[in-house]
């Protein structure tokens, strides 16, 4: 038997804006069911890397494959259909929708009925039911009918994950999922992240090292668009180069 196909892999992925190389020949593999953290100092190219993976940016060179399928040239929405889904560092929701509407809309896309013009929701109520069950699963049931922009920030961050889950990802990219969430609201969010199904490969960008070491089983350190090193949390914590990059500051606590 050969090694199992990674859920997501890149080879030689490169992108530069003029003289600034935001991704420099990145070789990367995310195994199925991974809990992987992508860390690095500001400006290391972490968000650019996610943008390359989702197709928001087109690479100058290199390939991207999802469960063995080459998706390098594929438009974003088709990558989502194949199971590559992300969340946003800056909350990107549907302000006047209810959470139920946001998730139902996403499920309609996934089920391929979102282009239907003349079909009412009476015959699609099972999709709304699924959306509701999903919301209940992440603790948002009592906000299902609220208007999104009136929700507290922590609940919006939860909804951000809920919308992504509704697309039924195989690979989930979380861009700083807990950024800016006040401590008293963060409990439900961390629970939701901990409860993500095992069959989803998760990669997250995070600056909060407590979170990184709590959830990650493996870590990639990105510096100036290049992979500096990869390893288990223990290996990364011991790595002298990583300490140098971070000046030790975040690793002491």
């Amino acid at each position, binding site marked *: 038997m050969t090694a199992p196909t990674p859920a997501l892999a890149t080879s030689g992925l490169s992108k530069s804006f003029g003289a600034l190389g935001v991704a420099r020949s990145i070789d990367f593999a995310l195994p199925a069911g991974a809990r992987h953290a992508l860390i690095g100092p500001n400006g290391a190219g972490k968000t650019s890397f996610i943008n390359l993976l989702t197709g928001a940016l087109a690479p100058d060179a290199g390939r991207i494959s999802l469960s063995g399928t080459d998706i390098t040239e594929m438009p974003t929405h088709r990558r989502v259909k194949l199971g590559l889904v992300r969340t946003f560092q800056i909350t990107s929701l549907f302000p006047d*929708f209810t959470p139920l509407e946001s998730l139902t809309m996403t499920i309609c896309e996934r089920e391929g009925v979102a282009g239907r013009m003349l079909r009412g929701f009476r015959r699609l109520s099972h999709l709304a039911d699924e959306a509701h069950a999903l919301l209940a699963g992440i603790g948002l049931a009592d906000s299902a009918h609220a208007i999104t922009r009136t929700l507290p920030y922590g609940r919006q961050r939860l909804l951000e994950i809920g919308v992504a889950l509704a697309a039924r990802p195989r690979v989930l990219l979380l861009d700083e999922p807990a950024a800016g969430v006040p401590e008293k609201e963060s409990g439900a969010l961390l629970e939701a992240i901990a409860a993500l199904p095992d069959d989803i490969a998760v990669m997250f960008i995070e600056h909060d090292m407590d979170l990184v070491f709590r959830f990650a089983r493996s870590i990639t350190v990105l510096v100036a668009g290049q992979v500096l090193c990869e390893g288990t949390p223990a290996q990364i914590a011991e790595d002298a180069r990583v300490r140098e990059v971070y000046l030790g500051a975040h690793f002491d606590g």
Partner: protein
Amino acid sequence: MESIAPGAGFERRSRLRAGEVLLWLAIAAAPLYVPGHLVLASQILITALFALSLDLLLGYGGMISLGHAAYFGTGAYTAGLLAQHGWSEPISGLVAAMLVAAALGFAASFVIVRLSGVALLMVTLGLGLLLFELANALADITGGSDGLQGVEIAPLLGLFGFDMVGRTGFVYAYLVALGAFALVRRIVHSPFGLSLQGYRENPARMAQIGAPMAARLRLVNTISAGLAGLAGGLLAQTTQFVGLDALGFERSAEVVIILILGGGGRLYGGLVGALVFMIGRDVLSEANPEYWYFWLGLILVLVVLFMPQGILGGGAALLVRLRGRAALGEAAR
């Protein structure tokens, strides 16, 4: 909140409400209580239909158009020219008006879906002015600034002639508008309609939930153009005249104002806006037509400042507040 079944929100919203039935019955009864104003009533319906076509694009899809009169005028000239050249049967003429306008909308949509912001404003504005100047230049065909003369429409179904009182015209406009509202109602309450509103709420996020929006936006621009053409064709047939103003910037601006005044993204905003606008214009411009634009501008400024959700949105908010107060009052008791 607990008593609401999970998916009930969607079903309830798309269910036909008693108020809607009453509204359409009340409009149908117009010949009974305003028998002398049926021409104005038809024009309100036509304007409402035009505003509805924009609502689909702007109110639901969040895509601005400052040149929607391009489609309205295309429909009007199509219907008018057909009739002028001997094809006087109204229904087929109206269908042709809709199809030609939709075809133009389809062609334009390839440009429009690639743009946003100021560039979108410019291109829609430019498209409208382009057609206006084209119609002006082709005076041999369109009659230029004199308008299209000699538009003769045969009786509807060979039975009901279009008369000066406007009875046939009113019934005709009523049925077409009713059909268009039913169609748009169906569309906005479908999964397609939901994704269209999702695009309005957050265009950038749609691709990330797996939505191929470009194709859908092209489709909705085509439908919107077709409905605008329908409205234009109706105006040409019921008034038996087409003027250059059918393509003018003022008409494009007016329909945006009417929709915003009534409330976009609420299906009946265009109808309410058209009603208030047309009657207001009738009253205010009677005294002094030159200053009508002052009132129009003032209304627009006040709506933007104090009632950004339009009459329907403002009314809904007021209702919520009153209910809240009533509930508080009950609780106090």
